[in-house]
């Protein structure tokens, strides 16, 4: 069934089709319509789940942790300050090895107060041990929700799928909603391998001495690495049933490209138009979309970028005192390669600043003209 829907509702449909059992949630713009729609699904019987209203995002994640530990398929959604308030609990979900899935609608952090698109919220949670996927379209959003449960429940680590405020969350476009039976075939009912059970008592979350603690952390890293193999298979299996797949990255027009633009989220979509136009003019430029950010797709990134002369990374976030966060990751991935491009870091689109084809073209032209990348990121657009 093809339906015109906003990105937030694409999340809600993905959650309904995944037959989630517990949804603890707290509202925040621009996420609210995800959980509003889910509360309707629960109220009208389309989804047989417990919808739990909580008093803060910290409690929402604490509630997810309890529900997931009890063996329920669990989902929540948040944004910006709400995600920041969850921070402590995000680490806990990972350490407790709980396959919680959360949608985060990328929104700027205040002050100054701002409700618009910015990736600082999710990128600030980079080191919490959650898998992260950045989506380009509402279809990809819906499909990634379903894939996320499949991956998380296999590796026992939580997943955050990320969508742009307003440019996806409140943008209506056509979405092919999969049949429930097909989704059931892809994602059977969740059977927790370990769960709170009064008839079979175990101890959860108790103290670990240093040598054991490091062992536990090492296992998390091992399973994060294994998540690459699991996510690849989850994407392939998805394609065999639904005829759509996304990969960890997507190299667009990268063949023979001297300069490759690297970016994520909806800017990828607009950048495709710019790359097509510049290719028509005979310019050797390409585009690399980063969809999976954790675990980082080293092989895909290195494979796509190693033969380029220059790489321009467009970041919708800044690590103050360093540079764009995606740019840092790309630089570190390429550092030990025998042949590697010059890597330029660009900052734009913060707090919802509209990233137009003009801005993207300016970034590509700027990187072409500069011989050496400056140490500092280059800021494009905005007023001071």
């Amino acid at each position: 069934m093809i339906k015109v829907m906003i990105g937030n509702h694409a999340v809600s449909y993905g959650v309904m089709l995944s037959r989630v059992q517990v949804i603890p949630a707290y509202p925040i713009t621009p996420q609210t319509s995800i959980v509003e729609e889910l509360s309707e699904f629960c109220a009208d019987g389309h989804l047989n789940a417990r919808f739990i209203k909580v008093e803060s995002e910290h409690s929402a994640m604490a509630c997810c942790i309890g529900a997931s530990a009890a063996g329920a398929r669990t989902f929540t959604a948040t944004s910006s300050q709400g995600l920041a308030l969850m921070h402590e609990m995000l680490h806990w979900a990972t350490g407790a090895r709980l396959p919680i899935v959360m949608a985060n609608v990328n929104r700027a952090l205040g002050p100054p107060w701002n409700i618009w698109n910015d990736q600082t919220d999710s990128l600030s949670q980079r080191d919490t041990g959650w898998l992260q996927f950045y989506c380009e379209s509402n279809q990809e959003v819906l499909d990634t929700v379903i894939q996320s449960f499949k991956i998380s429940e296999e590796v026992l680590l939580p997943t955050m799928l990320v969508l742009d405020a307003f440019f996806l969350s409140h943008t209506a476009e056509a979405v092919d909603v999969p049949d429930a039976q097909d989704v059931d075939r892809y994602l059977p009912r969740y059977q927790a391998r370990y769960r709170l059970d009064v008839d079979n008592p175990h101890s959860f979350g108790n103290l670990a001495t240093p040598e054991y603690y490091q062992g536990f952390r090492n296992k998390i890293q091992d399973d994060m690495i294994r998540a690459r193999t699991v996510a690849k298979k989850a994407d392939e299996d998805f394609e065999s049933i639904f005829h759509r797949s996304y990969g960890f990255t997507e190299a667009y027009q990268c063949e023979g490209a001297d300069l490759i633009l690297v970016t994520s989220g909806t800017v990828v979509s607009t950048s495709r138009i710019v790359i097509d136009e510049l290719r028509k003019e005979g310019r050797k430029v390409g585009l690399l979309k980063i969809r999976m950010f954790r675990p980082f797709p080293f092989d895909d990134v290195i494979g796509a970028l190693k033969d380029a002369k220059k790489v321009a990374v467009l970041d919708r976030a800044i690590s103050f005192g360093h540079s764009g966060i995606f740019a840092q990751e790309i630089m570190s991935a390429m550092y030990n390669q025998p042949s590697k491009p010059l890597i330029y870091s660009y900052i734009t689109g913060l707090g919802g600043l509209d990233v137009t084809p003009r801005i993207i073209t300016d970034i590509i032209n700027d990187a072409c003209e500069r011989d050496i990348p400056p140490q500092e990121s280059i800021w494009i657009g905005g007023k001071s």
Partner: protein
Amino acid sequence: MIEIRFHGRGGQGAVIASKALAIAFFHEGKHVQAFPSFGVERRGAPVTAFTRVDDHPIRLRNFIYTPDHIIILDATLIASANVTEGLKKNGWILINTDAAPSKFRNLSKFRVATVDADSIAVEYKLGTPTSPIVNTAILGAFSKIAGIVSLDSVLEGIRDTVPSNKAGNASAAKEASLRVLT
């Protein structure tokens, strides 16, 4: 690609209108995209919303700066905001007002149409007499003047998007399509 920009005030239904219009075009086999430019969401504050239509999948994901047509749900916005900014030559400006198109002399280089959507909305009990919800009426008028989407498709879009009084909203759209002035 056809790009349409809506200017309204919070509570008039501009955001729903942009989606209903997108669904209308979707019913005619087009690729569509509809989205709002939210500011501070409150009743009476200026709201801008956008609809894109194309024969191909729409990859452009930023605001609309050079619209083909403009739909104004509150005529007082003409004085306070630059609502015609970027409008293409031969584009329609459709205004919710009880005045005739000839009254808008400063807009004479564009094609101007007017419809008294406030009265029509009140007649069909959409919103309240002091804050009528005019989005569905204005879409009926747009279908008539622009000639790029049928009234039947607009009615489909309205049925898919309005949360209540679907019959009243559909009737308002039909009525407006008959009463629009060019």
